[in-house]
């Protein structure tokens, strides 16, 4: 007997009690059915609302993407076939959406030689984003008219609604003019720096002749005036050197001359260089050096320059009565940057140069920008500390070129510590 057969068509033939039970059951089922129907209607409304919201959201996304006219937003599937092509991409590459979507690949718009040099194909474009989740670098796009544009492209992977990898996003900003301007600026700085060195050579050379002429000794007053001229010419020369060096770093033309460098000697040299300014400013400079020599492979001149910059900054940032301490220590560095005295698994041998001062300090909000060229801390401006904001960017570039790191910790009003860590 089936479940359907169990329910007779009417209740007339049934005993009264059974008919009552059946009616009650029918009433219960009718209630359940009505409740289910009501629930279904609610779900219908919810589904409709959700669909409308989703459509609205998609419309919002599309309108936002379509509103971007100065950046190209190109979305592809996993094979690099274009699926999204915004007006910014149309403008940059000169191709309408209809000609591209589902018809062309992202690689079709890249300079073939550049792509081949990077390993070729889509993988050259996405390999870093695949490993790190994001990649931003300059690529050369080729427009419909064959023009090459330098574009800073941010590549990110895209997932579908179930979290599966669905393709790639390429958001590009045309940097052609900006990069050309940077190159021009660097060439200009190189040229000017070069040209400035020649008159400075004459000034310093003839000053040397006058100051060191045993046949015609100067009066103390004359010597003092000419020493001021010489000091300022040297300052100008350093500034020219810093500008030239910064331009070289920016242009990627900065090379090291590696040799064995005794860091104790470098720090002693930095202390000696800063001594005159420290004495004049009433700042005490202490050296804490290890008994044994600490030798690293590096460019002695550049490491000297880096230490000179740190020590001279510390002295300039410290008011009279303050103190600057230079320490040099060998140790072991963990992957997370912690420093220790003993070798442990996963540690690497390093040397640490710390330059600690009891000076004005740097506001916490400015620490991130400290290594940007021409940046000057507000405490430097407020306390009339001289400088143009190149020293720390140069020091950072030198440290990085040596495979090292430069860290800063500072408390405004209490002082600053710069820590330069180098592999040994």
């Amino acid at each position: 007997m089936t479940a359907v057969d169990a329910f007779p068509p009417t209740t007339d033939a049934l005993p009264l009690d059974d008919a009552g039970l059946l009616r009650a059951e029918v009433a219960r089922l009718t209630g359940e059915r009505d409740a289910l129907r009501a629930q279904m209607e609610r779900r219908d409304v919810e589904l409709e609302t959700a669909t409308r919201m989703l459509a609205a959201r998609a419309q919002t996304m599309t309108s936002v993407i379509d509103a971007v006219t100065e950046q190209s937003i190109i979305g592809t599937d996993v094979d690099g076939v274009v699926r999204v092509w915004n007006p910014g991409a149309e403008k940059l590459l000169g191709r309408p959406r209809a000609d591209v979507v589902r018809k062309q690949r992202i690689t079709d718009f890249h300079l073939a030689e550049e792509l081949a040099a990077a390993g070729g194909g889509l993988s050259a474009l996405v390999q870093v984003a695949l490993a790190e989740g994001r990649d931003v670098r300059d690529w050369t796009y080729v427009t419909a008219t064959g023009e090459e544009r330098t574009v800073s492209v941010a590549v990110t992977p895209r997932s579908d609604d179930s979290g599966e990898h669905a393709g790639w996003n390429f958001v590009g900003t045309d940097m052609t003019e900006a990069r050309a301007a940077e190159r021009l600026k660097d060439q200009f700085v190189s040229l000017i720096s070069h040209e400035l060195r020649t008159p400075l050579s004459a000034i310093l050379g003839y000053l040397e002749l006058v100051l060191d002429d045993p046949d015609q000794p100067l009066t103390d007053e004359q010597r003092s005036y000419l020493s001021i001229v010489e000091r300022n010419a040297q300052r100008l020369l350093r500034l020219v050197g810093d500008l030239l060096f910064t331009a070289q770093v920016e242009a990627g033309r900065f090379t090291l001359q590696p040799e064995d460098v005794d860091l104790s000697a470098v720090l002693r040299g930095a202390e000696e260089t800063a001594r005159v300014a420290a004495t004049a400013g009433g700042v005490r400079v202490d050296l804490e050096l290890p008994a044994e020599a600490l030798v690293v492979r590096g460019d002695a001149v550049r490491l000297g320059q880096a230490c000179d910059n740190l020590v001279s900054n510390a002295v300039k940032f410290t008011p009279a009565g303050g103190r600057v301490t230079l320490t040099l220590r060998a140790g072991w560095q963990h992957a997370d940057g912690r420093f220790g005295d003993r070798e442990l698994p996963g540690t690497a041998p390093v040397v640490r140069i710390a330059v600690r001062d009891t000076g004005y300090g740097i506001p916490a909000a400015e620490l991130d920008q400290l290594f940007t060229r021409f940046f000057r801390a507000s405490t430097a401006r407020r306390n009339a500390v001289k400088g143009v904001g190149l020293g720390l960017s140069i020091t950072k570039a030198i440290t990085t070129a040596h495979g090292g790191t430069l860290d800063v910790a500072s408390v405004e009003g209490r002082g600053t510590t710069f820590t330069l860590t180098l592999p040994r």
Partner: protein
Amino acid sequence: MERAAPRVLVADDEDDIRGLVRLAVRRAGCTVVAEVADGLAALDAARTAVPDLAVLDVSMPGATGLEVCAALRADADLSGIRVLLLSAGASADDVARGLAAGADSYLAKPFSVAGLVTRVRELAAGGTA
């Protein structure tokens, strides 16, 4: 008989710098046999005077100091002339380029006069500095 003073050619397009070099050469006990302001004139002077030492600026009109140096090295009659390059380029690459062109020594501007005197004296005596 007293030994003749080493003979030096000075080439720089800046009058003031040439003046400093001339002075340093004399202080080093040498004689300036020719003073010129461009690279081609430096080559001519080298062929005419055949000095012991040529002090050449790198950035000169006509031919650069590097080109003059390379031309001297390529000429069998002149290849024995010692060369000191002076340059406003102070980077390691600049020095490497100078030495690759065959220079015996390289001095970046600005130089100390005393340092130049020492360098000229050593080179004129036949050494490398």
